[in-house]
């Protein structure tokens, strides 16, 4: 029983360190330390999406990132787009889903669809 409680506590710590608040705090501190920063946010989901609306991913100009918008499926593609957003400063909306051939390749295999808003922090 005690062991279970410890496991639950450990799981809670893992969830806490990746909360969206911490992502936004990270985005602020990265930007204030002079790194170029983009923020990606899940703005819509359809079907079974791995991360809820409002989930964030913070990306810097060198492709370092923290957080999650899909549990790993499309992060690579989002990071690539984020580097472009940092370069031209224009926000854009990305959509991934099984209906999209390219998106299938990057792997949202759960069958859902997600829309992600990517913007530069400056």
């Amino acid at each position: 029983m005690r062991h279970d409680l410890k496991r639950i506590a450990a799981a809670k710590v893992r969830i806490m360190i990746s909360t969206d608040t911490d992502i936004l705090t990270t985005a602020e501190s990265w930007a204030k330390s002079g790194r170029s920063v983009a923020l990606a946010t899940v703005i819509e989901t359809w079907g079974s999406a791995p991360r809820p609306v409002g989930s964030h991913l913070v990306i810097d100009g060198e492709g370092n990132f923290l957080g999650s918008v899909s549990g790993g499926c499309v992060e690579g593609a989002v990071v690539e787009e984020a580097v472009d957003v940092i370069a031209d400063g224009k926000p854009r909306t990305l959509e991934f889903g099984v209906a999209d051939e390219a998106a299938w390749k990057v792997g949202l295999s759960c069958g859902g669809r997600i829309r992600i808003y990517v913007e530069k922090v400056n």
Partner: protein
Amino acid sequence: MDLSILAALNAERATRRATVLVTDVAGGTQRLVKAADIAADPLAEVLDKQLRMAKSAMVEVDGKQIFLTVQAPHPRVVVTGAVHISQAMAPMAKLLDLDLVIIDPRSAFATPERFPDVTLMTQWPDEAIATLGLDAYTAFVALTHDPKIDDPGLEAALRSECFYIGALGSRKTHGRRVERLAAAGFGAAGTARIHAPIGLDIGAVSPAEIALAILGEIVSTLRGPRRKPV
């Protein structure tokens, strides 16, 4: 996003105040609405609704796609009384994702053996609450039946903006409590904030059922009223 908006959002969050970031997805324009300014906002109704649910969402306003990033502080329940009801409340609060703090100066009651994994404070309630602070995302519950312990907590709660105040006891007990609070300078509008008899009226008998009734009332106050009357 403007760095000053992000910094303001994080600052509000750090002090346990709610905000909604309003983003026009097509145009890229943004503004931050603080909880205190929601009532006067053109989007007041939808902002309030999303804030109560603590859920970010896409909404359509005048044909425009607007994304609302909702930042709601984590709700907290502060209880006076390390008693049977609060023992039953502890695992339920954990399941409901409510942070529980139990205050009881009787250190024989407030022991980690009786309350594993719960934040316990053995100071007097006024002292403990001065350290904790009670805000708009805190519920205060008085469970000791002892005015020496409950009253200082209730007085602190009434002076705060906490979203829920409840006190255990019959109507008669509560009547005497209201008289004491009135003598301490609290008007009728203040004491009317106290839910007493405490909890949803589910005919609760056991400590666990009373804990359920109280937590049900807290959740309903936090989230409601969302259902429109028929």
